[in-house]
């Protein structure tokens, strides 16, 4: 156990020393405190080597203290909760945390893949594209697997994620993104003005940079000011503060996506809590106060563990009370250098030198450096960092010869600052291009999404007092813009500071590899190579070198990279431009974006009112779109599923069967123009349909192909009920809405889907009437003359339950469909079963239903496949010539009338025992089975218990003229080749006597 925290400061910081935590990294135990990040705790324990880079497997440490971290990526947690590529700089420490280094073999300190580094000259940018081509077959067999194994970073667990996620939607007047000084000031004034405010902060604490820097606001330490603001916000009921919440995307219409890490700071989510929550925030206005991200400096071997961003160094010192090193050098091209020297010295870290490439230094800087006992090396630069897994020294250039200063300074910490990049990513999500601002040497927002205002460091303003004022102004402006009287804008004072900078994009004369994109190992030499090979456009640079494509999306790398490209091509940085930032701003767990839509809850499950009844009958259920339908009702004596199906089919043919047909789409249409409407929708005529009658109809899409079929009943003079297939219930309804709202708004009718409102059963078989007689009102005449085939009525059943009764038949038997309000659905099924017991009533499922309809040659999904015309399916005579209807003109296109189009036929295997398979293709006897001989395909098949052999439907070129011909059903996928006879699709009772019985 090494948890001695040698690098922890004795006091100070925002950690809770009364709550020690224990954690493991690569199997070793350490200690930290509540309030630490994993990175802070590792540094406190003197751990410097944390990861390996992507390509060269170079040893890497901790660069930053935030979400921009490119190097310190670890596998967090274990088992099914393993999270690869987790940034140690934002992972909150909890007791028992386990982390492992990744992308190394066999161990972090000794990684054989670091050999790649020796081959670096060959593995330069774009090397894949020019190599691995010889010999051709070796790519997939050898090179690609090797590359794939070496690439990638962490390992996925491969196990289902055990945690839950949820989604929430929130509406607000003002969304403030970032709770640094500017964001807090904005939220404060907006809140005081009475706006509904959401303040989102990715950190677990509010304050932004104020947590890391020793600053003063209004005469008191900045963190006290923060505490005061937080308290006041807490009293405002319309202000919601979301910590641990990253706003990841700006979408259209003021919609923002944010992810709240509800339980990532705990070992496991507490009971009933999600791990993370996705917020869809719809905001009338937004203030982007997301701060800025510091830039590394680009010099030789600048990736050595111990080379750290200066702002991060201050964060570790001040917020986490950790000394990231024992002896430091500070290298900065801007005024942050002096601040860093001061903080290091205050924390007791020896500071050897402040290296500043600028020729002049302010008096204040000189004073600070002197007080720290350090040297101020003006006009100097670090050209190389020394050390392997740990920084040991830096080499300098520009040190005046004869000054007596050794150009090699031993140190274990280099704090560097190349300036700051405003965090403008969210401003680009609508396509806005950031613009170059030479005074700060950074990109500032260009066109921003509608309703957004950018303030503070995110807008390129680095003076604290200004940031506070800007934030407050933005809060007030939001109120005014929304027509609310703004609360007064307070005046703020802060300790003085300067923010001068002299851009330094790469250190001239650097020795060793100068990295720009640490994680992806993109160095200055790669940018130079891209330039030579013509990849000068920034997007080409990015794609060719992978600059900015790592898990940090180039947050520390992009600007350095394109600035180097600008230098190499002698263009300005504005001319060179920048790549487009894409959501999400921070890598986001896919689980959060999916919410609870996974496993059985991926999509809603629709159950019919008779579901429980069917289950009690032993039904096997199967998915039918969103519905669960009974596939069959196996009984103890059935040998197998086929036996069950046979039994159910024969019961319908010989006695009576009961089938739940609730899932068919039902659309209730009312109004004087319904008949006209139906006339335009269906290919056949509707004006002659009498009240109390049902008619079968076929409708086409605009393009002339069949959309759906079904029956429509006329229940009253202005009242119709349409049924659709289960599969097309939604699309037909949408189609009707479109036709009514867009094409014929003048037609006087209304319609609504009532699929869910009515439970419906088919009662089919020679005994159907006998069963039905027991539940209709005593006076109701079920006689053939009184209620013939295709009759329909509204009536009552079971002593007063309102019902709709249709005499329609899909099975070809005497059959009725009875619909009752959904709440009676279960009871009706049970009552019919009781009523039919003496008649041998048998529940039947989808499989039997399918065989029954096949025997009658009725088309279903496989024939109504969207590629068939009414002619193809044998409905040509239904196509009215006396009226217009949707699809009529397009159905007359020459190719749709071609005589050799595949059309519906019946198929019967020549050998009585042969089986058929759906999806087989139809080929002439004796022909070679190839594409040229392909004449159609088998759509639906089944074993007909009624006929004692297999039957099928198919679509065959010129099929109607070929009855009696023998062709082959060829199924190369399953190695089948079966002779079949082309027959009429009407296999059973072709005269239709039974349904009129």
């Amino acid at each position: 156990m090494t948890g001695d925290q040698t690098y922890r400061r004795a006091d100070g910081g925002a950690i809770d020393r009364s709550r020690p935590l224990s954690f493991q990294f690569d199997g070793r135990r350490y200690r930290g405190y509540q309030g630490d990040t994993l990175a802070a705790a590792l540094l406190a324990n003197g751990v410097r080597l944390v990861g390996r880079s992507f390509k060269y497997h170079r040893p890497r440490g901790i660069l930053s203290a935030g979400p921009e971290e490119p190097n310190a990526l670890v596998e967090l947690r274990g088992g099914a909760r393993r999270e690869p590529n987790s940034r140690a700089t934002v992972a909150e420490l909890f007791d028992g945390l386990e982390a492992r280094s990744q992308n190394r073999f066999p161990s972090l300190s000794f990684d054989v893949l670091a050999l790649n580094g020796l081959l670096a000259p060959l593995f330069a940018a774009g090397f894949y594209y020019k190599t691995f081509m010889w010999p051709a077959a070796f790519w997939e067999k050898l090179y690609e697997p090797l590359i794939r194994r070496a690439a990638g970073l962490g390992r996925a667990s491969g196990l289902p994620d055990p945690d839950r996620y949820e989604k929430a939607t929130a509406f607000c007047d003002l969304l403030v993104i970032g709770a640094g000084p500017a964001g807090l000031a904005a939220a404060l004034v907006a809140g005081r003005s009475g706006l509904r405010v959401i303040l989102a902060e990715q950190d677990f604490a509010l304050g932004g940079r104020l947590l890391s820097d020793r600053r003063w606001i209004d005469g008191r330490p900045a963190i006290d000011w923060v505490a005061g603001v937080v308290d006041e916000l807490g009293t405002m009921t319309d202000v919601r503060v979301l910590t641990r919440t990253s706003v990841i995307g700006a979408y259209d219409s003021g919609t923002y996506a944010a992810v709240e890490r509800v339980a990532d700071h705990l070992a496991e989510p507490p009971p009933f809590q999600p791990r993370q929550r996705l917020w869809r925030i719809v905001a009338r206005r937004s203030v982007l106060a997301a701060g800025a991200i510091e830039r590394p400096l680009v010099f030789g071997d600048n990736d050595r563990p111990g080379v750290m961003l200066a702002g991060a160094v201050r964060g570790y010192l001040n917020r986490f009370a950790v000394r990231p090193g024992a002896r430091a050098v500070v290298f900065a091209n801007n005024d942050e250098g002096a601040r860093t020297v001061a903080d290091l010295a205050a924390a007791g870290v020896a500071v050897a030198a402040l290296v500043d490439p600028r020729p002049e230094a302010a008096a204040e800087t000189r004073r600070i450096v002197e007080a720290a006992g350090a040297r101020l090396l003006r006009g100097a630069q670090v050209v190389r960092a020394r050390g392997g897994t740990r920084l040991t020294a830096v080499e300098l250039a520009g040190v005046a010869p004869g000054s007596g200063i050794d150009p090699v300074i031993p140190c274990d910490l280099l704090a560097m600052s190349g300036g700051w990049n405003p965090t403008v990513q969210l401003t680009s999500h609508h396509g806005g291009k950031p613009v170059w601002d030479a005074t700060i040497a950074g990109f500032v927002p260009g066109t921003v999404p509608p309703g957004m205002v950018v303030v503070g460091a995110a807008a390129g303003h680095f003076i604290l007092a200004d940031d506070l004022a800007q934030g407050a102004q933005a809060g007030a402006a939001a109120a005014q813009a929304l027509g609310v009287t703004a609360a007064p804008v307070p005046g703020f004072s802060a300790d003085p500071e300067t923010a001068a900078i002299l851009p330094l994009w790469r250190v001239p004369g650097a020795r060793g590899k100068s990295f720009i994109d640490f994680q992806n190992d993109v160095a200055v030499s790669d940018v130079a190579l891209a330039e030579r090979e013509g990849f000068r456009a920034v997007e080409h640079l990015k794609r060719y070198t992978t600059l900015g494509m790592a898990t940090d999306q180039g947050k520390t790398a992009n600007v350095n990279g394109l600035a180097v490209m600008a230098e190499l091509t002698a263009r300005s940085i504005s001319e060179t431009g920048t790549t487009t930032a894409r959501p999400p701003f921070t890598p986001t767990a896919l689980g959060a974006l999916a919410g609870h839509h996974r496993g059985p809850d991926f999509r809603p499950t629709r159950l019919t009112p008779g579901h429980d009844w069917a289950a009690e009958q032993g039904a096997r259920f199967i998915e039918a779109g969103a519905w669960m339908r009974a596939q069959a009702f196996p009984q103890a004596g059935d040998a197998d599923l086929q036996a069950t199906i046979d039994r159910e089919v024969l019961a319908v043919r010989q006695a009576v069967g009961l089938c739940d047909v609730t899932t068919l789409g039902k659309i209730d249409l009312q109004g004087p123009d319904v008949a006209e409407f139906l006339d335009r929708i269906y290919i056949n005529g509707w004006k002659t349909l009498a009240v109390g009658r049902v008619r079968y109809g076929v409708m086409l899409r605009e393009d002339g192909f069949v959309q759906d079929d079904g029956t429509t009943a006329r229940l009253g003079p202005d009242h119709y009920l349409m049924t659709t297939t289960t599969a097309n219930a939604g699309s037909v309804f949408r189609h009707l809405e479109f036709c009514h709202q867009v094409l014929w708004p003048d037609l006087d009718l209304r319609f609504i889907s009532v699929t869910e409102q009515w439970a419906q059963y088919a009662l089919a078989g020679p005994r159907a009437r006998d069963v039905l007689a027991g539940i209709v009102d005593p006076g109701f005449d079920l006689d053939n003359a009184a209620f013939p085939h295709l009759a329909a009525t509204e009536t009552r059943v079971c002593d007063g339950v309102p019902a709709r009764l249709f005499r329609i038949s899909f099975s070809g038997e005497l059959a009725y469909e009875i619909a009752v309000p959904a709440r009676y659905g279960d009871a009706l099924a049970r009552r019919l079963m009781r009523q039919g017991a003496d008649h041998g009533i048998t529940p039947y499922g989808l499989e039997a239903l399918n065989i029954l309809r096949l025997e009658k040659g009725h088309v279903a999904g496989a024939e109504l496949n969207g590629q068939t015309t009414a002619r193809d399916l044998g409905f040509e005579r239904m196509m009215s010539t006396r009226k217009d209807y949707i699809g009529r003109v397009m159905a007359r296109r020459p190719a749709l009338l071609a005589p050799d189009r595949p059309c519906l036929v019946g198929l019967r295997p020549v050998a009585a025992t042969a089986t058929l398979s759906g999806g087989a293709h139809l080929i002439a006897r004796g022909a070679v089975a190839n594409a040229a001989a392909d004449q159609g395909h088998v759509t639906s098949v089944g074993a007909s218990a009624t006929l004692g052999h297999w039957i099928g439907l198919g679509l065959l070129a010129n099929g109607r003229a070929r009855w009696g011909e023998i062709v082959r059903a060829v199924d190369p996928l399953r190695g089948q080749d079966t002779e079949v006879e082309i027959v009429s699709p009407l296999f059973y009772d072709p005269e239709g006597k039974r349904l009129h019985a």
Partner: protein
Amino acid sequence: MSGDCFSIFTLLRQAWTGQGGLKPMWREPEPKSAYDAVIVGGGGHGLATAYYLAKEHGMSNIAVLEKGWIGSGNVGRNTTIVRSNYLLPGNIPFYEHSLKLWEGLEQEINYNAMVSQRGVINLFHSDAQRDDHVRRGNAMRLHGVDAVLLDREGVRQRAPFLDFDHARFPIHGGLLQPRGGTVRHDAVAWGYARAADRRGVDIVQNCAVTGIRVEAGRVIGVETSRGLIRAPRVGLACAGNSSRVAAMAGLRLPIESHVLTAFVSEALKPLINTVITFGAGHFYISQSDKGGLVFGASIDGYNSYAQRGNLPTIEDSCEEAMALIPALGRLRLLRHWSGIMDMSMDGSPIIDRTPIAGLYLNAGWCIGGFKATPASGWCFAHLIARDTPHPVAAAYRLDRFATGHLLDEAGTGADVTMH
């Protein structure tokens, strides 16, 4: 003409001489005032067309005009899936020709586009869907294309991480095309550009076509942001911008423009070794050689030229991801981006002459034109050079919407959200 032939020897030499000898992959020529032909659009299709025009038809006094940088359109935005698992006789030979060209591409253009034939599995979740896939697989087999029917266990062996136990729509099996796979998309644009450049083709970037000059029913050239460029033959290969560019010649295309979003996760060690498509949604996923999981799903569903997608579709896509692979929950989405899709009314492309003599159209690729890149270039070049369609692209006629010779693979009609 620039660029040496890449061989292991030139690379080694470059490596240890500081890469100083490498030259631009393509020149940056000033556009000439006239060419024998110009191709509008420096995406995969335009660049491939130029290459094959030069290589197969000896036309090298030609130019590709690109409004931005080459590869800035859909060729650099797609999910990189290539396959030829089509159903209709008008489609299979074309896509199979494309797959064969992919198979020889690296040697052909001396550029490694990382053609990776790791197999494409289309899952099915019901008996009806199985029959549909069988019909398609059999059509492929009859055309001499590889297809294998997998049962549930066969799928499980290849992709054990799929949800086999708690799925809302259980996996019944899949149709596998072993020769399908992925190709590194940017490299396709660069490789064709470099190869075309070496044959003398001018690749002109930052050159937007702003008008199409027509005289007496013949095209005579294009107006561009860099001046008038004359050419007796003009080929449009503008993918998502097809409707806007064709409108410059007064043509109204049977195309709608829609947004499609692609996604990539953080890089991971190998997890998914094949390409998988979800049959109970519209989702497809593979893993890049860099380690990122690359996936996509449906178009957003409204007409747009804004190259960005919106949250409902993004959430929906991730829901499909989780429904299919529950292990994805803790893996992180790194980036999503979008392209504009040229959605044709039957889901199939158009490679044809137009009513204007000398003006040729290559468009309507919907969400699946990347796989078509080599064959599209091959056939479009043939059409431009000979003014007659190539046999494997003969079905891709512009007038098929009038004649009814539609190529509606999915049977969804003119509802582009379903293609």
